[in-house]
């Protein structure tokens, strides 16, 4: 240490300065820009889902927005404006001969299956409607489809495929809400109670067994839960309650509760464990019992976190597709009865997208529903992130 000191001389201001290295610089920039992509993806998702529903927003001539979108994809010559040309463009698969018999061979089957369920009742109403409404509708709607689409949004009928298509989002909204409420009413209490047990009462060894098992439920693909609900639960509950339609909102709700439980459980468990130990110790030192501490001290302290858990659970159920497709019966009926078939937003997209024609109103409406779903889940997540977490942190840091 105290020998020669040539080193000292090199410690000038210049040498202490960070050296510029190209590889360093590049790697940092590349890493940052890749991270930036994750923000870009969110924007892209919204833009492209919303873009496809744009034709709905141009009132008046329907052919115009179509050509506008085409020109974005550098193909004005091919698509042109001719409406006949739009049909084969179904988004591809139908035009290739090899694929046709194999893939879409199934469609007649699916159509037959879906139609009697979905449109059976509304068809009857159709017959009575024409007397009063059809003449008026025929003038305004059949010529300029986009015009009337908006007004049908607030009706209660979902009849996308007919001469006089109606896109009543109310029926779908009610259906989605029905399933969501049932699912959260089942999953919420169950998952929160289980989380309270694991974080407050269970011994460490039990905790280590319980947590991974419940989290294993999260690894169940939703299609498996849907399949189980459809094949086993539906029959079981029908035997118990004896209602008419085998697949209904209740079955869908129960099945979706299974999908929501692990989410609600994990997040509320985290929130409960994040409550400072001092709270628990103070409460116990004052002589409160364990249950009193859990329900009167820890649970209230973790309320914002549990609220966030419920919000994310709602988000999950609201957008769940496969379970809704398989277990809810898929009929857009409007009723308050939980034992009737419903059709949710996500299931509507999932089941009807394959049958629509590119650029058609029905196609745009489905994308519009998609944008609604995206906005909804985005808002839920934003609330859970900013409002709830900010509150939680404030609370623990003594306001």
């Amino acid at each position: 240490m105290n020998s020669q000191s040539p080193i000292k001389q090199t410690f000038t201001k210049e040498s202490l300065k960070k050296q510029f290295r190209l590889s360093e610089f590049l790697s940092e920039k590349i890493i940052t820009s890749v991270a930036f992509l994750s923000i870009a993806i969110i924007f892209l998702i919204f833009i492209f889902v919303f873009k496809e529903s744009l034709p709905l927003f141009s009132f008046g001539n329907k052919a115009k927005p179509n050509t506008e979108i085409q020109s974005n994809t550098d193909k004005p010559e091919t698509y042109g404006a001719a409406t006949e040309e739009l049909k084969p463009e179904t988004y591809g698969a139908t035009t290739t001969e090899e694929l046709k018999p194999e893939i879409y061979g199934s469609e007649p089957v699916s159509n037959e299956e879906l139609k009697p369920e979905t449109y059976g009742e509304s068809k009857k109403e159709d017959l009575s409607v024409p007397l009063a409404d059809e003449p008026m509708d025929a003038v305004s709607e059949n010529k300029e489809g986009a015009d009337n689409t908006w007004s049908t949004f607030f009706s209660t009928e979902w009849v996308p495929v007919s001469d006089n298509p109606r896109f009543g989002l109310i029926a779908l909204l009610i259906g989605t809400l029905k399933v969501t409420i049932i699912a959260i009413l089942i999953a919420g209490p169950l998952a929160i109670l289980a989380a309270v047990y694991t974080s407050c009462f269970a011994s460490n060894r039990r905790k280590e067994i319980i947590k991974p098992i419940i989290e294993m439920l999260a690894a169940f693909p939703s299609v498996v839960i849907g399949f189980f609900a459809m094949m086993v639960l539906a029959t079981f509950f029908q035997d118990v309650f004896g209602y008419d339609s085998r697949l209904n909102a209740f079955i869908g709700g129960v099945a979706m509760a299974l999908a929501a439980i692990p989410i609600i459980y994990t997040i509320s468990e985290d929130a409960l464990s994040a409550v400072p130990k001092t709270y628990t110790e103070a409460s116990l030192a004052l002589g409160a019992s364990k249950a009193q501490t859990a329900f009167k001290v820890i649970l209230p302290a973790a309320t914002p976190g549990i609220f966030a858990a419920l919000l994310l659970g709602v988000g999950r159920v609201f957008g769940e597709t496969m379970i809704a497709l398989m277990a809810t019966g898929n009929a857009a009926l409007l009723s308050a009865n939980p034992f009737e078939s419903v059709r949710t937003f996500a299931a509507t997209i999932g089941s009807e997208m394959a049958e629509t024609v590119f650029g058609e109103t029905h196609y745009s409406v489905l994308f519009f529903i998609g944008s609604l779903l995206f906005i909804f889940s985005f808002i839920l997540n934003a609330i859970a992130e900013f409002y709830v977490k900010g509150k939680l942190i404030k609370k623990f840091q003594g306001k």
Partner: protein
Amino acid sequence: MKKSKTLSENPFSKSKVKGDGIKEKAVVGLTQLAVILIIAILFIILGIIIYQGREKFSWEFISSFPTDGMTKGGIFPALIGTFILVIVMSIAAVPFGTITALYLTEYAHEKSKFAAAVRFSIRTLAVVPSIIFGLFGLGFFIQFIGTGMDSTFNGGELRWGQPNILWASLTMALLTLPVIIVSVEEALKTIPRELREASLALGATKWQTIRKVVLPGSISGIMTGTILAVSRGAGEVAPILFTGAAYYLATLPGSLSDQFMNLGYHVYIMSTQSSDVEKTMPIQFATTLVLLMLTLSLNLVAVVIRSRIRRKAK
């Protein structure tokens, strides 16, 4: 207030204490019941699927094509399709996710607004309904990029502008990205700061430290993330409904621009749109069993690796 009264040595409140004892037990019992109920449901599902699926489940079932309009035969093409899907998906998602995780743990400043935005969008990505990814795949990959590629390279001939493996895999990659990022981040955080500091003190640059010290140490975390993502990707159906999954194909997909069969989609199709649901019941249960075994065993492996990482960190 009430609590302190109950618990003081006041003899008048003794009866109250006793009542609380029962209440206490009831409350704890209630929460315990919730746990037991959830675990019971889980095992009932598993049990029924295993019980119903076991009779059809065999090597032959896994390794043969479906025949007779899917009422007989196996699930080989669906299995292969799922494998190709998750492999292409991992190739796209793992580097991307790892680099983003690296940014968040190594480069981002604690209070950087940009890092907060990245984090927020990753969380959003995790909660966006899976069907939205399907719509995005259709709108962006197929109709925007695919059609664009066709018109520039293929002279308008339809090749990429239609549902296929590539677009389905990329869609799935976006869906599983958060899973990978979170796992890798967790692994990066377990690498002790001393190691990084030692490396930097020896004169290594930041990038060298990351490449030679941090990344090798977090290899198991990257693996966990990949496995979890693969398990998620293998089970998810909604995003591929209209980005590439096919109802039935007589041959295996030969290139990235082919459609493919998928296990989850197969289960969905067989149970909802098959011509004879009752007759194919054993096949459906067996297919579900295969899918469930695939995802659960992958998850189990991930859990084991993860617990090892955690033990090492302690």
